[in-house]
């Protein structure tokens, strides 16, 4: 059983469109992180959300942590080709700094 399920697994959209990707679990977490990974590179941290219901914005990216701290969403407004990549959510294990990653959403933005 996967701790973190991400959906959709693949997403291909035209430049300028909006999109939302999801990260879901049956477990409660104290915090959740979102990473973006481009081909041939390691994941890069985008944001950490901590409080239930928290919303954080990073330019055209909006991240929300669910009220119950079991799920999160990432919304991208007016997607650009530079947004192409693998989007990963991740959580830490209680009492340790080990990151557990979700299954990932591979986003392709077509110019």
């Amino acid at each position, binding site marked *: 059983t996967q701790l*973190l399920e991400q959906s959709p*697994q693949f997403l291909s959209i035209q430049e300028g469109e909006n999109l939302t990707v999801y990260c879901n679990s049956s477990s409660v977490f104290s*915090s959740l*992180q979102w990473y973006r990974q481009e081909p*041939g*590179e*390691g*994941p*890069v*941290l985008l944001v*950490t959300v901590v409080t239930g219901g928290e919303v954080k914005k990073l330019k055209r990216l909006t991240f929300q942590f669910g009220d119950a701290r079991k799920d999160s969403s990432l919304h991208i407004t007016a997607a650009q080709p530079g947004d192409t990549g693998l989007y*990963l959510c*991740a959580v*830490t294990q209680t*009492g*340790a*700094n*080990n*990151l*557990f*990653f*979700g*299954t*990932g959403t*591979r986003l392709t933005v077509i110019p």
Partner: protein
Amino acid sequence: EAGVVQSPRYKIIEKKQPVAFWCNPISGHNTLYWYRQNLGQGPELLIRYENEEAVDDSQLPKDRFSAERLKGVDSTLKIQPAELGDSAVYLCASSFSGLGSPLHFGNGTRLTVT
């Protein structure tokens, strides 16, 4: 500031051969991680070091995998003998100690076992 450095970037070996990966973390980062990432999936933790001590190696297949971080700085991950199913990207990451410290990843070593 230099990031996490990994080498080699690519490695192609035949099954049953040994292989080793090297990682140099960001200076001052006490915690070092090795992850494995299969194609189209998220990374999975293999082992975590706090300085030179392996504090979590529960996911490391110890029959063929080994790792060391002798001086608490750089680290090597070894597979002997390699199997076809070991083909993946091996990622190294580092962070300061303490909960919530962000992880910084290297660009990985892509291993292909033929």
